[in-house]
């Protein structure tokens, strides 16, 4: 293979597809951690989102309604996390682990109940691809950006939305303050609990969207445990991106690239590196980032800490 193959259009198309669910979920991570809650449950939230999206598309033949309800389901799941970790002051990580176990059991159970299937759902109507006029006619760039499943485009819209909400609105300022210095937020009369509930609702919706991207965007069915750790990778992307929306997006793209590279390694003739090492790359990069090798990173000061009024 030549170095040019690393800039193959198929590789970039694949990168965007693989990155989209990660972008959504990592934005979910940004919302939660910026408000002071560790959301390990993103893995389970994505799984529930993927399942609900598929189910709704199956029964109503409307994939878009599926996406919408996946967001609602994700938000509701995050509310369980909010109730236990914020109101009842339970440990965030323990609660998240519990929710992930619940999501795996619940989706597997419902798959059997509703479809009498184990392992995989029937094929349902997926989101129709979008083609972008003008751009699709540009050589090279058009091939990469011209035609995709809608979530790929929406992921970038979500990044802009998150960025503006967090950095350009009073709501975003309060949300971030709740994660840095909750006592100060409380002192000026803003309800820390409410901020964290709101942040987790947004976090859950993003996670649900990421899940729907898997089942209705990339595939057209639900597969048991189809997230396969993407929720955790998304958290890694959030850290790698230094807890910012744009950073999380860039990290997701990098991780998506690594995944695409390992998928296409065979066809590209990339055999001198075992594909397992490409698969390990996102994890190693994240650890390197956390260790401060790639610039200094620090989590929101109050992230993961219970707040006592």
């Amino acid at each position, binding site marked *: 293979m030549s170095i040019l193959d690393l800039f193959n259009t198929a590789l970039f198309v694949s990168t965007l597809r693989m990155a989209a669910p990660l972008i959504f979920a990592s934005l979910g991570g940004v919302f939660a951690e910026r408000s002071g809650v*560790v959301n*390990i449950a993103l893995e389970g939230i994505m799984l529930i989102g993927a399942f609900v999206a598929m189910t709704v598309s199956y029964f109503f033949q409307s994939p878009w309604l599926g996406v919408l309800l996946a967001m609602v389901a994700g938000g509701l799941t995050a509310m*369980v996390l909010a109730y*236990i*970790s914020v109101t*009842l*002051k*339970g*440990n965030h*990580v*323990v*609660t998240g*682990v*519990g*929710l992930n*176990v*619940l999501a*795996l*059991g*619940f989706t*597997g*159970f419902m798959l*059997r*109940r509703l479809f009498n299937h184990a392992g995989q759902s029937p094929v349902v109507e997926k989101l129709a691809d979008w083609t972008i006029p003008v751009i699709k006619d540009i050589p090279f760039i058009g091939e990469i950006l011209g035609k995709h499943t809608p979530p790929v485009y929406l992921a970038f819209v979500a990044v802009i939305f998150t960025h503006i909400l967090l950095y350009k609105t009073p709501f975003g300022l309060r949300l971030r303050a709740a994660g840095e210095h909750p006592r100060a937020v409380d002192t000026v009369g803003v309800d820390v609990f409410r901020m964290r509930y709101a942040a987790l609702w947004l976090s859950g919706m993003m996670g649900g969207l990421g899940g729907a991207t898997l089942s209705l965007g990339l595939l057209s069915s639900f597969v048991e*445990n189809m997230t*396969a*750790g993407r929720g*955790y990778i998304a*958290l*890694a992307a959030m*850290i790698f991106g230094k807890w910012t929306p744009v950073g999380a997006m860039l990290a997701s793209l990098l991780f998506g690239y690594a995944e695409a590279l390992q998928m296409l390694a065979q066809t590209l003739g990339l055999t001198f590196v*075992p594909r*397992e*090492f490409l*698969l*390990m790359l996102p*994890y*190693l990069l*994240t*650890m390197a980032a*956390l*260790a*401060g090798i790639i610039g200094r990173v620090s*989590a929101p000061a109050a992230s993961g800490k219970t707040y006592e009024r």
Partner: protein
Amino acid sequence: MASEAPKGSWVNRVAKLDRLWISLIAVTFGVIVGGVIILSVGKNPISAYGALWKASFGSTRDFGEALVSMTPLMFTGLAVAFAFRTGLFNIGAEGQFIVGQMAAAVAGYAIVGVPSWLHITLALLAGALAGAVWGGIPGYLKARLGAHEVINTIMMNYIALHFTHYLVNGPLKGHAFLPVTQTVSNSAKLWRFFPPTRANTGIFVAIAAAAVVYYILWRTTIGYDCRAVGHSPDAAGYAGINVSRTMVTSMLISGAMAGLGGAVLVLGVQHKFYDLFGFTGYGFDGIAVALIGNNHPVGVLAGSALFGVLSRGSQRMQSVAGVPKEVIGIMQAAIILFVAADEVVRRIVRWRRAKALQVATATRDEVEGGTV
């Protein structure tokens, strides 16, 4: 959770007991949730739970196999519990378990010409060492650089999965077609004392490990340091304890426990490393086991017995009683979430105590009032 009452008062003494009650109530809660779900699919919970029970206690053969499913959880439960006591969250028991499996498998077939007792010891140590390295890295990163161990241990899980996948399909592939290592020598196999079941001496290694964990935590300086750091790293630091070193030590011991578990599974049950297409789940179940066992070695042994019975019973419930095996997963989740939300129980207990006190006072007033 600060209690309002002063130290040494009866409220605090009862609060210690509360931990046991929380675990018991959590399990009861899980059983009820499972029962409701079984009812919702139109099955009889009693017969479903009966099938679950029989899967482990129906015959001596079932009992032997139940011991086999409990054993790995004892090790991963101890691993998570030990780190917890130091205030560290080891989600990486899964990865430590996996590398322990691989190291023990290699030691099991690569070492030749040593007596069985030595071979087994060396293979177990290889597993423990691999696990210790896998746990020690996040421990070091946490202690030295403040990198969060939760994320790093999760990352190490995936690295273990892909790395062993590479090894067993590449340099360490020990079979013409299958992704497995070579079979370990007979001298490295743990004695199966209860044939035809696969129950083996590994369970005694687990019980010994629990005793060692207890000894370290409550009878040695290292253990004291660990618990002190777990209570408050700042206070421990002021008291002159080397917090960084304690964290690394704790993660080394924790990882060694999980790695030992992987070694025991290979030497006692599998006799080789099989390619994993996903996680074994032992590491994650270990978190639940540690929580339900209140991070105490004895509690961990009890918790792994419970979760071993549950996981073995889930298959039987499906085949005999026609209840989807995922019900057990939901039940386990209910238990974990209930333990996480233990504040609910505390509130209820506190409220009931206040109520009882009120009633007692009211009754006394009434009685006294009557006699006057």
